[in-house]
């Protein structure tokens, strides 16, 4: 899907902090003349960190993520990845879908290696890489299974392995845990953090859960109800070396949850 020619940016030349791998500059999105999903979003995503988009339903989180992924075209504004203008999907970005988006006719192995298959990589090579990531996400021995033979949590692990296998710098995850139960969800959060501490990715994460956002994120961006605007950025500053129980009882964690809840409560009026 090619994005049509972009408007040139208003000549206030964007200043890239070396730190930000993804820069969103003045992005607005209209679906129809009277449906504005996003309003003038300016946002930087620091390299190697996990940034979470949090906001009420329908505020444009998915829209923003898909614009960054190059799957949707912004009505106004630009997105830069590594300083390059985004005009469509690129190899440095990989998406993890809320509904998993696994091909039911393909085995786990083929699903995980699909991104590499599209790049024309030879079968042996891509299967070898895929097997490594299948093991990394805890699905060893499930390579020959089909998606319908897996539980919801396992399917999302396949989606995660597929995104990791193409070795993109930026992982985009749209409510990846919303379809799994709470227990699986917590396990998954731990696993994701462990995996990221090894792989050093930048993660753009969308969730509805304040606790989840605070637990996993370096930076949380609060969006207002439609049209989505950036209302506040919170940095929970959590030490992930601590155990999960210590974190959830720690002051930083509780303060951040409180702060965000206070902010979101304001939208209810």
């Amino acid at each position: 899907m090619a994005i049509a020619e972009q408007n040139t940016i208003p000549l206030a030349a964007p200043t890239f902090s070396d730190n930000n791998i993804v820069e969103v500059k003045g992005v607005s999105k209209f679906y129809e003349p009277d449906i504005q999903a996003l309003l003038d979003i300016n946002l930087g995503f620091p390299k190697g960190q996990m940034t979470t988009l949090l906001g009420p339903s329908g505020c444009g989180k998915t829209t923003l993520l898909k614009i960054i992924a190059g799957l949707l075209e912004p009505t106004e504004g630009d997105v830069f990845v590594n300083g390059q203008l985004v005009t469509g999907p690129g190899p440095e970005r990989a998406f993890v879908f809320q509904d998993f988006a696994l091909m039911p006719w393909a085995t786990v192995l083929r699903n995980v290696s699909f991104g590499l298959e599209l790049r024309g990589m030879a079968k042996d090579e891509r299967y070898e890489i895929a097997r490594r990531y299948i093991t990394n996400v805890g699905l060893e021995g499930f390579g020959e299974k089909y998606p319908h033979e897996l539980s919801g949590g396992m399917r999302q692990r396949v989606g995660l392995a597929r995104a990791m296998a193409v070795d993109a710098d930026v992982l985009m995850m749209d409510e990846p845990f919303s379809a799994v139960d709470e227990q699986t969800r917590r396990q998954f959060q731990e696993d994701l953090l462990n995996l990221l501490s090894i792989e050093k990715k930048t993660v753009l994460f969308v969730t509805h859960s304040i606790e989840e956002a605070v637990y996993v994120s370096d930076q949380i961006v609060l969006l207002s109800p439609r049209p989505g605007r950036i209302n506040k950025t919170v940095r929970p500053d959590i030490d992930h070396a601590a155990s999960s129980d210590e974190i959830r009882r720690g002051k930083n964690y509780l303060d951040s949850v409180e702060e965000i809840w206070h902010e979101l409560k304001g939208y209810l009026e």
Partner: protein
Amino acid sequence: MSSPSASVATPIASPSFRISQITIWRVLSLILLFGAWEIAGRVPISIAFPTFFETMSSLGTMIIDGRMAKAYAKTLEPLVIGIGLSTAFGIIFGVLMGLSRKFQWIGEPIFIVMQAAPMAALIPLVTFLYGIGVAAKVVAVVILAAPIIVLNCFRAVRNASPSLIQMCQSFQGSQIQVIRKVIIPDAAPMMFSGLRLGVAAGFIGVILAELLITPNGVGDLITYHRSVAEYADMYAAIFSIVFFAAVTVGLLEKAEVTIFRPEKKGAA
């Protein structure tokens, strides 16, 4: 990462056990059907209705003396050509209609009318245009089979999962890759069910043509034996064509599973 908390549900019965179970029930269903036929023939509900065993023995005789082979040679040629043409045309045009609005706008009204209209009623008219040769039979097969195949392919492609398409695009799949690796396999089950219905309609087309236009082949076998009151032979011919159609449609299902949807293997 630790291993996932949920484990795969293991089927209660092993697959081979399940399959043999299924076979038993299927055989039972056939025994019931043929048993009812045998009883109805013995009552008899009509002197023109032979028993199952009489019909089978006629079938045996007709196979041995070559009447069946001769009739099928006549029937199969237009059937195979007609189905082949309908399939090729149906898939190409159906997929184009699914992918492009312009093709949809051109094609949809025509094929919907063709599918809704009692096309069988047009078969006698085919004679005016194509005479009484193989061509006429081929046309009869095509006008019955093609609309069904086209419309099913079209709907299958149009309903291909947007989420899978977007997934493929997000990994930089080209337009061709999106069609080949996502849309076609995703549409395959519905395309094949269209194909099965189309083939079944094709059988109707060729038999109608033989009954109404060109007196030869299996259709003629039926008419001829009825006219000389050899009812066992007539029913043997009918049985053979029903059996043949069922087997063909079953083979199509096998082909679908083998080529496109391996995950359905054993699901029966």
